[in-house]
């Protein structure tokens, strides 16, 4: 819904520019650079607004996600007792800053690690030629991708710990995240990889959905509904991931 608010003005810009022209047919078969070029100088402003809007939206949703995650983890942790809507938002508010800090810390860890394993070979490759570095880059990328479940486990364990022990000790929570991840590494890692693989499957389905080109308004509605179903399944899978980590935390 929120993304539609940002995309709406851009869509209106296009439809207004096209007006009563048949030009929309130029993009019927897919991307047509002539169509975009001929939208004129206004396209640059429209794209700029769209980019700013998307950036702002990502930031907003990032914060909202952190806020809601607090309530979600707390509700999952407290599944044996009665949990009210009020409790959910109370936990969200209580845990917000702790979760924000933990998320930012783990985000930096991911970026630092990524820079180390991918960035360094890129710097080296600027001075050299040949296949060896391409192979090195491939290996680095694989290592980085395989490390993502570990970082997700760390943040999820840390968030569970914060939910159980209060929001005041973020660094301790991160330390616990590391400890919990590596103490039962195989089970945790396999679980997280499985979660990511299922998520990946739905991303693949979404990509296939995008190659569907409906010709009518009804077809467009079907496309929209299917994409939203996939989105909700992904949200559900994320909640499942959180629940799985919470369960592992208590076992």
């Amino acid at each position: 819904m929120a993304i539609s608010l940002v995309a709406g003005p851009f869509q209106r810009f296009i439809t207004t520019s096209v007006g009563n022209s048949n030009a929309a047919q130029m993009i019927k078969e897919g991307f047509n650079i002539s169509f975009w070029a001929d939208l004129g100088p206004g396209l640059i402003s429209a794209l700029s607004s769209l980019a700013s809007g998307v950036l702002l939206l990502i930031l907003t949703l990032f914060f909202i996600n952190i806020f809601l995650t607090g309530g979600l983890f707390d509700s999952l942790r407290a599944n044996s007792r009665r949990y009210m809507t009020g409790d959910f938002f109370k936990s969200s508010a209580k845990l917000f800053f702790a979760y924000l800090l933990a998320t930012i810390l783990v985000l930096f860890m991911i970026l630092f690690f990524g820079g180390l394993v991918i960035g360094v070979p890129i710097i080296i490759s600027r001075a050299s030629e040949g296949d060896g570095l391409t192979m090195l880059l491939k290996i680095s990328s694989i290592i980085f991708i395989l490390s993502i479940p570990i970082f997700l486990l760390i943040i999820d364990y840390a968030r569970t710990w914060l939910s159980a022990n209060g929001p005041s000790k973020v660094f301790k929570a991160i330390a616990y995240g590391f400890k919990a991840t590596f103490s039962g590494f195989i089970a945790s890692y396999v679980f997280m990889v499985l979660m990511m693989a299922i998520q990946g499957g739905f991303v693949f389905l979404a990509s296939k959905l995008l190659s569907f080109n409906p010709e009518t308004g009804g077809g467009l509605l079907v496309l929209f509904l299917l994409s939203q179903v996939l989105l909700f399944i992904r949200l559900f899978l994320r909640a499942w991931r959180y629940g799985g980590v919470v369960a592992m935390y208590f076992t």
Partner: protein
Amino acid sequence: MKKLYLFAVLMGISISTYGQIVVETPLSDRVTAYTFDVELDPEAKTVSGIMNAYWVNISENIVPDIRLHMYPNAFRSNKSTSSTESGRSLRGSHEIDFGWVDILSIHDGKGADLFDSMKYIQPDDQNSNDMTVLHVILNEAAMPGDTVKLNIEFISKLPSRIRRTGFADDFFFVAQWFPKIGVYEPAGMRYSKEGAWNCHQYHSIGEYYANHSVYDVSIIVPMEYVTGSGGMLISEDEIDNGKKRVVYRAEDIVDFAWTAWPDYLVAEDEWEHVKIRFLYPPGREDQVGRQLAAVKNALEYLGERVGPYPWPHLTFVDPPKKGAGAGGMEYTTIFTSGSVDKIPEFVLMPEMTTVHEFIHAYFMGIIASNEFEEPWLDEGMTSYWEVRIMDHYYGPGKGIINHENFGISDWSISRMVYVMSGDKKVVDNTPYSWDYPEGTYSMMSYKKAATWLLTLQGIIGEETIDKVFRRYYDEWGFDHPTRSDFVDITNEVVTELHGDRFGEDMNWFFNQTLYGTGICDYKVDGISNSKIRSFKGMMKSDTGMVLHADLTDGDTIFHSVARLQRLGEVMLPVELHVHFESGDEISEQWDGKATYKDFEYWGSDKILWATIDPDFKIAMDVNLINNSYTLEPDNVPVKRFMRKFVTIMQFLILSVTF
């Protein structure tokens, strides 16, 4: 003793310039010829040795002097014309970053020392710091028909941070590297009213101009170096001290460039009579087939439509990453492509560069226009043929990006650069390359020219324009045409094939495009369908016939109008496609001259939509969106695009929030 040996060798080579080794008969007048005996010093980054050259005075004038291009001096300091024009600081703090050429001795054919009669001149801008044109007063003025021989000992220091020529570590691309004789233009040649040297300084923007020449080049390089050049390899022999001597010969080309790098890999192929040699860096083995296919496509396409590629050899180079500055440049029988490691197969940039640079073998190589003064004659024509070749071989709409779900045509890119430029009305296509207003050279010389050539093709037809280029090749191959020569040939061919269908000649087209600054923009302003309730009198039917009409209230007759508007200054004939509610369609022609035109119809049918130029023949129409008007706009494609965009963004945002 060493000098005596050298003299004997050079005299021997010199004599051979009159013979035929590469092609069966001379392709050009061979007003100039060169022999070189040089050595590459990989440590000092220099090429030094002896050059013997001759120039024949084909004019009826007595010529007292000779002018030489000293191109490497463009990199001699940050005050050269090239540097100041580009704003480059040549900020090298080390001497090794600069480049230059020095003449150590110069003698004429009779042994007279000309060293003291040399003087650097600056015919273009009087910048006394520029040393790229050398004026030499001859000991004896050249009489009509005389051959002036020069024996020059020189040293060229190659610049670092390769800008077409130079070095990067042990990679060398050696271009514009020797004292090169300018073009003496007798009265009547091109724009020359009286005989004069045409020898421009080296500018940051633009390229070159030279006579077709014979080159015999002997180069000494370290044994481990792999070399390539615009010549045919005659011999490669090991000499002492871990070095080898490679000897190349090239005939009837306008420039001789060569390259040396120990790490080159070599692929060889053949296309009809042409032996193709491709030098490429390790890591790009997967692109060899793509590059060779691209060059063979271009050979085939131009061979069929413009004229045969006359030489039996062709070398092209994909420079390594460190030598990328040498990429995308042409020297007729050797050119440089440009690529990166692991570029996906659907991205056709390497093929596009290869095709483009190869086409230059025709447009400035065979048809040796003056690139300094009329850059569109080479870049515009080359870009035009590049669009045709890429979109022909890689699929319509797929000439640049050829992905199964996504394509971009070369036609679109070429046109887009022109259409989106805010400077398209600033200047026409006639300035010298360095006189184009800041930032407009590429857009004007490459893209505007290509776009109006595509438009010319749309108007006169592909077959006709092919015949224009075929005749341009036949008449001006191995000569130096001007834009007027191309215009004249177009007029001739169009008149021969179409009579006065397009008017007395095609000057009306060139005056608006080549010589004009206006833009072309046609629009369908609107459609109306008015129901006529009662009418008595004369009216036109759907087919334009005048009829007597006597309508009563029960009849349903519409007066339908499609109004066309000319928004730009350029007036071109356009086609209108009118679609009626019943499914009937009519094609109309409009000369496009008036500011508006109503196409009117009376009948029982209503116009549903109308489109100007439905086949996109008028590539230079700057707005294709307003080329049509419909009463039933279909926004589904736009909505679908946005739905997909929203879905992608939703998934992306979900991924970045963990």
